[in-house]
């Protein structure tokens, strides 16, 4: 025989559970737009009959269950999707960073505009044609000089812009490394808090949400891997080494030891482990994108150094090939040379071979800057006895070099410039496409994740109605029992009273 008031207790658990469920629904609706929030659900089970272990059944009614028991508030989350998302996120952020950087460079290399390297190169070559046509005209010579100066200053400008950009990326490496440390430290801190919280047996749902969000952010910067120990401790690894081992942080640092191909100095920020200065292996994420833009010097690992290197090759070829022919020729006699015609004059400054010619220091030889008469158009010395002012044979020899398609290393000047530009265009376009594809992939993963974990207002409202009805029904059960007892206690056995 069960207790008289057993039914009240059963109905009460229903009231409590519904109220609890309404609270959870309220929490979900409140956080519908909170970034990183995972929807929560109340876990309930039905209570077994309150009979204990007896040898015989006391009565039939005793097998009625004891109502509902509230077990836990659960998160609905798929760990596997989290992993997939974070992996794709690293690649997406890498490609995004790379594309943004390459697009910046591309905007600079607007080779179809009127002020492009190709254009100034063509104009410079044309001026040599005019020189061959009119080797004696001062105006024509001055034009060669000014077009050449335009070419050198344009290349200097591009070199300057590219190295400025590289410096920005170098600073960005430092900032991103700091950001990795910051996030990793927060994760280590959260690990500690979560452990303390969960010691009671509760689940720290909302703290876990925060930690997951941090892992998402971290995966965008560097390609992390992570695992949970059986006891629930979280370890985050980067390049095979622990970045976070439960509550301990394995911090990163930057050391100014990285080789800069642009300056030849060891001055770039290198990402290392703070504890032993060992290099960190980074293969994806926005930090990798930044590193590639700063350091990339192959066609596959395209970055600023590759582009600058290509420009340097062009500049070196220009200086070497044109100087070789130009220095064979003879200049126009002028007051600056005491009225004599001289030979052995370089067109571009080769700094006596002391430093390599680069797009950054590319300039005309001082003699050419002094006077355009020092442009050697003649292949013969011009003297009072041998008036060969109109000799244009050396100008033609220079034109032969300009038109040549068999220059060592670059084949042809204009052809090489076209290759530089089209390689850049292809890299940018490739990177853009890859980035687009990766973004689609990432948004797919994100959609699968939200599909499972995201809050649906409609669903919550429907649940809210359900819980409301359940609550009302449980309350009605109590009312009904109350009426039944009222009948029993107050109105029974009063016949004839």
């Amino acid at each position: 025989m069960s207790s008289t008031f057993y039914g009240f207790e059963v109905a009460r658990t229903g009231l409590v559970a519904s109220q609890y469920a309404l609270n959870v629904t309220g929490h979900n609706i409140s956080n519908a737009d909170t970034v990183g929030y995972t929807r929560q659900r109340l876990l309930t089970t039905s209570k077994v009959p309150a009979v204990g272990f007896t040898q015989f059944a006391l009565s039939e009614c005793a097998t009625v269950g004891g109502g509902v028991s509230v077990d836990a508030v659960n998160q609905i989350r798929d760990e596997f999707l989290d992993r997939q998302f974070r992996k794709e996120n690293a690649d997406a952020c890498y490609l995004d960073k790379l594309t943004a950087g390459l697009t910046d460079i591309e905007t600079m290399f607007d080779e179809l505009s009127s002020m492009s390297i190709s254009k100034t190169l063509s104009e410079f070559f044309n001026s040599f044609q005019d020189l061959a046509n009119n080797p004696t005209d001062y105006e024509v010579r001055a034009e060669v000089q000014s077009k050449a100066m335009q070419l050198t200053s344009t290349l200097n400008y591009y070199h300057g812009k590219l190295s400025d950009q590289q410096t920005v990326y170098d600073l960005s490496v430092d900032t991103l490394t700091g950001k990795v440390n910051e996030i990793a430290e927060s994760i280590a801190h959260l690990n500690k808090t979560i452990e303390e919280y969960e010691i009671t047996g509760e689940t720290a749902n909302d703290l876990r949400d925060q930690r997951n969000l941090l892992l998402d952010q971290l995966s965008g910067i560097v390609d992390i891997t992570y695992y949970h120990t059986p006891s629930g401790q979280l370890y985050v690894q980067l390049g095979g080494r622990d970045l976070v081992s439960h509550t301990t942080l394995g911090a990163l640092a930057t050391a100014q030891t990285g080789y800069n191909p642009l300056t030849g100095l060891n001055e770039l920020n290198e990402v290392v482990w703070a504890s032993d200065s060992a290099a960190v292996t980074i293969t994806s994420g926005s930090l990798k994108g930044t590193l590639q833009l700063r350091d990339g010097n192959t066609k596959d690992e395209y970055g600023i150094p590759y582009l600058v290197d290509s420009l340097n090759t062009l500049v070196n070829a220009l200086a070497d090939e044109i100087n070789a022919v130009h220095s064979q020729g003879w200049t126009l006699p002028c007051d600056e040379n005491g009225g004599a015609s001289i030979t052995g004059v370089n067109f571009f400054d080769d700094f006596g071979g002391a430093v390599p010619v680069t797009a950054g220091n590319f300039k005309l030889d001082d003699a050419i800057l002094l006077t355009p008469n020092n442009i050697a158009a003649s292949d013969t010395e011009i003297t009072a006895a041998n008036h060969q002012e109109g000799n244009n044979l050396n100008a033609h020899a220079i034109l032969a070099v300009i038109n040549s398609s068999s220059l060592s290393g670059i084949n042809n000047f204009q052809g090489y410039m076209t290759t530089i530009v089209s390689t850049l265009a292809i890299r940018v376009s490739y990177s853009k496409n890859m980035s687009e594809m990766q973004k689609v992939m990432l948004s797919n993963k994100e959609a699968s994740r939200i599909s499972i974990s995201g809050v649906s207002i409609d669903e919550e409202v429907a649940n809210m109605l359900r819980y409301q009805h359940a609550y009302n029904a449980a309350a009605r059960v109590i009312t009904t029992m109350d009426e039944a007892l009222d009948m029993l206690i107050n109105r029974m056995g009063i016949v004839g009273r």
Partner: protein
Amino acid sequence: MRITSSMIMNTFLSNLNNNLNSLDRLQAQSSSNRRIVKISDDPVGLLTTLQVRDRINDIEQYSRNIDEANLWLRQAENSMMEINSIITSCYEDVLRASTSTMSPTDRQAVAAKIAQMRDQLVNVSNSRMNNKYVFGGFNTVNEPFEVSGGVLYYNGIDMVNGDPVALEAQKDQKMEFEIASGGLKMNVAFTGVELLGTGEDNLYGILDRLYDALEADAPGNELAAYADVLLEKQSEMLGMISDAGARCVRLDMLRTRYEDDTLNYTKIQSQIEDVDQAEVYMNYKMAEAVYQASLSAGARIIQPTLLDFL
């Protein structure tokens, strides 16, 4: 699949962004009138158009070179025509003077005229184009021909008794212009050595001796011999004139071809680089319609929730 409102919102936002992107791209194309706004828009087209640009640039330069070369040739041709008329006039005078009916006084008069022609010859041979001497080889700034003590000097070398090797070497001073790709050059000038000839029988020397003969009242048959020499010189001169003419024709033909080429290449360049405004406008209208449709669809889907119907 379970669909949540934030999924719908994300999809909507990312598609809306894509639509805006294409609007932006079309807008940039239309307003800049450039099909390739950024070089990565069409790397293959970019490669072609850069090569076409180089080609157009070359053609423009070669056309300028041809114009310049034409000026030189025309000037040389004109001067040679003038020299030719000098020879003709001298030839006629010699024929007249060689007849026995002419009196010594008249021959003196003819001699004076020949002397004038002889000096005129030097003048014409020193003719200039844009302040450059056309018959001086590489010597374009100083007068190539100079008469000193009755002797004609070309670039400082005695045309009669000078070193024959040195004189021959003067012929190498060809003023050349690059007129086609691959370094194809055309020689546009005639050197003084070719123009007047060297040794005893240079044109100046002939006229000088003719003058002396007329002054000395030489016999008719001796004078008649000069007529033959002059005829020979004239045929040489005519040969050079027609040579110059032929070169002018070749240059003109090349110039015409370059004009056609420029037209063709510019067309290719325009096809790659320029925007077909009508097409872009059509595409823009289409993109705009898609954008507006996505906005209105988004507004309808996002607005209502279950709450609106309870």
